């Protein structure tokens, strides 16, 4: 009965769309795009293996274990990622401490790391013979296994959660907290009952993005996981070790199950509560001061994590200028020679990343707006579409793209467009989470005012919502950009001789044991990515737009 009423509601809502042709058009366009560029390629991968291939999932112990391990690693890493992200976001947004520039910088670094090469840096520092662990501290620790992987994944993926959480914390007005203090609440009560509940959509959104990234990560488990079998690595190894695409597809499809669970848990936790803090009558006071010991305690913790990240990337940087990675530490510039031969690749990297991120940030914002602010009957479905690409390991999105767009009517393989589109849709979940978290804070009253004054959906979106969403938009754009510049998994099956990108070279170099050159290439990629962002910041700054990195 309840289902029928809600279905009737949905139909009624859909009928109302007739009055808003632009909104209807937008919805149709999004469904068409996501359906065509995400669902269709994924279906091609799903139907590639036969039923008997799927049966193997239940008969092989190793894969069953892999599912279990993947769920376990995703849970623990997501919790720590979110905690660290919250710490960074809180310190940067709310505390009056020095070194914020440094903190912001280290939240961007791990995003720009192509797979494998940073793992080498970790091993060099913290491995069995690690410079820090053995030679400096004299410890006999073993990084290989779930514990080492846990730490590495936390550091690698917390920035994704950070960007969402920070966007939310920054826009939570302090007025409510002052009100609570004035009524005699203790600090802890204010945190627990006022601040934390308002952070919830941000924390949940951030956790979901981090979880998707942890779940589909295959570079770190391969180098650092030791004997631990995880789904994405097992799937990839079926391709690279056994040339067995069918089994690989089965394992990749199996990844969708934990992803759907994650999605449901997250949506359940956020629930239908209201998180509105931007109501149209805004005055925000400076954050209420926290006690010194809390402030400096948090500062020290943040500093420690930042230094840890700097050490890892510093090693990578230093290694790029040494003769033989991890062995002969004498300095040289030779490793850079290779980079100059591949200027075209770097240019491609930047170009594709820029266009893909722009598209992703924009599409995600429109989608998030419709899901959050319009009752169109299929909100839950659209919501799921926004997060779906995150559940698919990049390489399978890539394989799906090849299968789907290799023949007429839409023959895209080998073009620049296919690279851009693949990166674009791969980035949607990241941008979508950010935009959603931001939107959940914007009260209906702001928009209602616009609508009452005669604006239509499009007008209110353009003139009211977009300006309010500038921060999440920019941060998701920056995130996607950095992520795309160093993305390997998605493009590995899509690039052609003319559309090769920089990460491919990094992979080729790692495969042939030229780690120093691989490190140099990575460093150049990172530097260029940051330079582009700085330039954008400067150009926009001149226009009076602040691009926060």
């Amino acid at each position: 009965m309840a289902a029928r009423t809600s279905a009737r509601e949905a139909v009624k809502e859909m009928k109302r769309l007739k009055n808003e042709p632009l909104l209807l058009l937008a919805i149709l366009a999004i469904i068409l795009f996501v359906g065509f560029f995400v669902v269709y390629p994924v279906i091609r991968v799903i139907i590639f293996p036969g039923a008997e291939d799927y049966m193997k999932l239940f008969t092989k112990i190793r894969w069953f274990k892999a599912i279990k391990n993947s769920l376990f690693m995703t849970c623990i890493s997501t919790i720590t990622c979110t905690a660290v992200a919250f710490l960074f976001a809180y310190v940067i947004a709310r505390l009056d401490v020095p070194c914020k520039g440094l903190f912001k910088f280290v939240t961007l670094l791990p995003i720009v790391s192509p797979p494998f090469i940073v793992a080498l840096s970790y091993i060099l520092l913290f491995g069995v013979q690690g410079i820090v662990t053995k030679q400096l501290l004299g410890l006999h620790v073993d990084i290989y296994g779930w514990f080492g992987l846990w730490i590495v994944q936390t550091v690698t993926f917390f920035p994704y959660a950070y960007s969402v959480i920070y966007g939310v914390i920054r826009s939570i007005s302090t007025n409510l907290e002052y009100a609570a203090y004035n009524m005699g609440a203790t600090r802890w009560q204010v945190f627990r009952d006022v601040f934390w509940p308002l952070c919830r959509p941000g924390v949940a959104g951030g956790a979901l993005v981090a979880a998707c990234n942890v779940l589909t990560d295959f570079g770190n488990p391969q180098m650092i996981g030791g004997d631990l079998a995880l789904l994405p690595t097992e799937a990839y190894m079926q391709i690279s070790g056994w040339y067995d695409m069918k089994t690989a597809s089965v394992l990749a499809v199996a990844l969708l199950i934990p992803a759907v669970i994650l999605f449901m848990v997250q949506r359940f936790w956020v629930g239908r509560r209201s998180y509105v803090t931007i109501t149209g009558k805004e005055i925000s006071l400076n954050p209420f001061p926290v006690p010194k010991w809390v402030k400096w305690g948090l500062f020290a913790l943040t500093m420690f994590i930042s230094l840890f990240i700097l050490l890892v990337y510093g090693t990578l940087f230093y290694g790029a200028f040494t003769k033989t990675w991890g062995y002969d530490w004498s300095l040289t510039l030779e490793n850079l020679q290779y980079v100059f031969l591949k200027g075209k690749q770097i240019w491609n990297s930047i170009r594709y990343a820029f266009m893909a991120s722009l598209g992703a940030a924009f599409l995600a914002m429109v989608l998030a707006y419709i899901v959050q602010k319009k009752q169109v009957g299929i909100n839950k479905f659209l919501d799921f579409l926004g997060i779906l690409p995150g559940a698919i390991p990049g390489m399978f999105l890539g394989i799906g793209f090849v299968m789907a767009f290799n023949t007429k009517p839409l023959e895209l393989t080998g073009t620049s467009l296919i690279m851009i589109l693949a990166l674009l849709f791969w980035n949607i979940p990241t941008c979508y989470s950010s935009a959603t978290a931001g939107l959940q804070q914007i009260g209906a009253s702001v928009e209602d005012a616009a609508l009452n004054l005669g604006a239509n959906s499009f007008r209110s979106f353009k003139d009211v919502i977009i300006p309010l969403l500038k921060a999440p938009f920019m941060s998701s754009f920056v995130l996607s950009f950095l992520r795309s510049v160093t993305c390997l998994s998605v493009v590995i099956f899509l690039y052609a001789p003319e559309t090769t990108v920089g990460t491919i070279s990094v992979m080729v170099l790692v495969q042939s044991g030229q780690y120093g050159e691989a490190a140099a290439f990575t460093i150049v990629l990172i530097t260029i990515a940051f330079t582009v962002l700085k330039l954008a910041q400067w150009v926009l700054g001149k226009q009076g737009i602040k691009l926060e990195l």
Partner: protein
Amino acid sequence: MKKLLSLMLALAMVLSLAACGGGKEEPAPGKESEKTEQPAEETKTGGKLVVYSALNEDNTIAIADQFKKDTGIEIEYISLGGGDAVARVQAEMGSPKADILVGGSVDLYGSLAEAGAFEAYDSPNNDTLDDRFNDPNHFWQGWYMGVLSIIVNEERFEKELAPKGVKMPETWDDLLDPAYKDVFVWANPTTAGGAYIATACQIFRLGEDGAWEYLKNLDKNVHHYYKGAGDVISPVATGEFIASIAWGHDSFKTQQEGYPLKLIIPKQTAYEIGGSAIVKGGPNTENAKVFIDWLLTKEAQELSVATSYRYPVRDDVAAPKGLPALSEVDLVNYDRAEASSMKETVLEKFEAEITSNR
């Protein structure tokens, strides 16, 4: 925000224009300039050839340069791991973009041949080769051989194991020495095809029972099993661990980088046959045939030996420098058909009796 959007859109448009105007990849750098002076005497067919290469990049470049010089055909290549290349050819089967797949064990060519991805071609140059290098159905052509080696970090070995009286390993059984406990790593045959060949090698060498006893004893020394066959090389090269088992040709490049990596070919070792195959329906199939013929010439074989650590398939080409001639390498009687038919059973047993007890 409006300004921002329009600015970004403008930038995007500029970038996409640049994308359309993007020219071709510059010709491969290297020896090109010195070579253009002397035109090759063979009849030049010209045109181009799209190669998916699982070889090292500098190896691919060397081949592309020489091939262009000899035939006038321009090679456009992309570098991929062997498995990635197979996945890609398979995914592109509806409308192939590559003409030829080169490098990687012929084991990987099997599933693609079955799927109908290859054009059969029987090169006139393969008549003198040993039978094992020629596919009876002509879908692939074997053109080099790689052997399994024991790899050792010489520096750490001398410092830590030699004083204990351990000799440099020479045989598979030497690896069972308890001195290697936790300084030896290996790859898991369930995920790494190369490690499976090493596992099967033990079965062919010692018989079923002897092999499992060997593997269980070896397991006591194994610190952990990596996922990929090649993953073991960097940790041994940098001294994170002391010894492992890897393909000689994969380790060679790392050794050339200057690491103290020693390659030892043990008695009764196994080998892989490296292949090349023509993609059915590729844009330049005729040139692909020229390429296969060319790969089997004496000159091309010599080039391959010089730029990699791979054994040639021709008798009249010498083995890689510093390696014994192929006739002197003691190869195990490796039965490829048997190895592939027992795969499932062996892997399940490996999982049940070795990995799950870790």
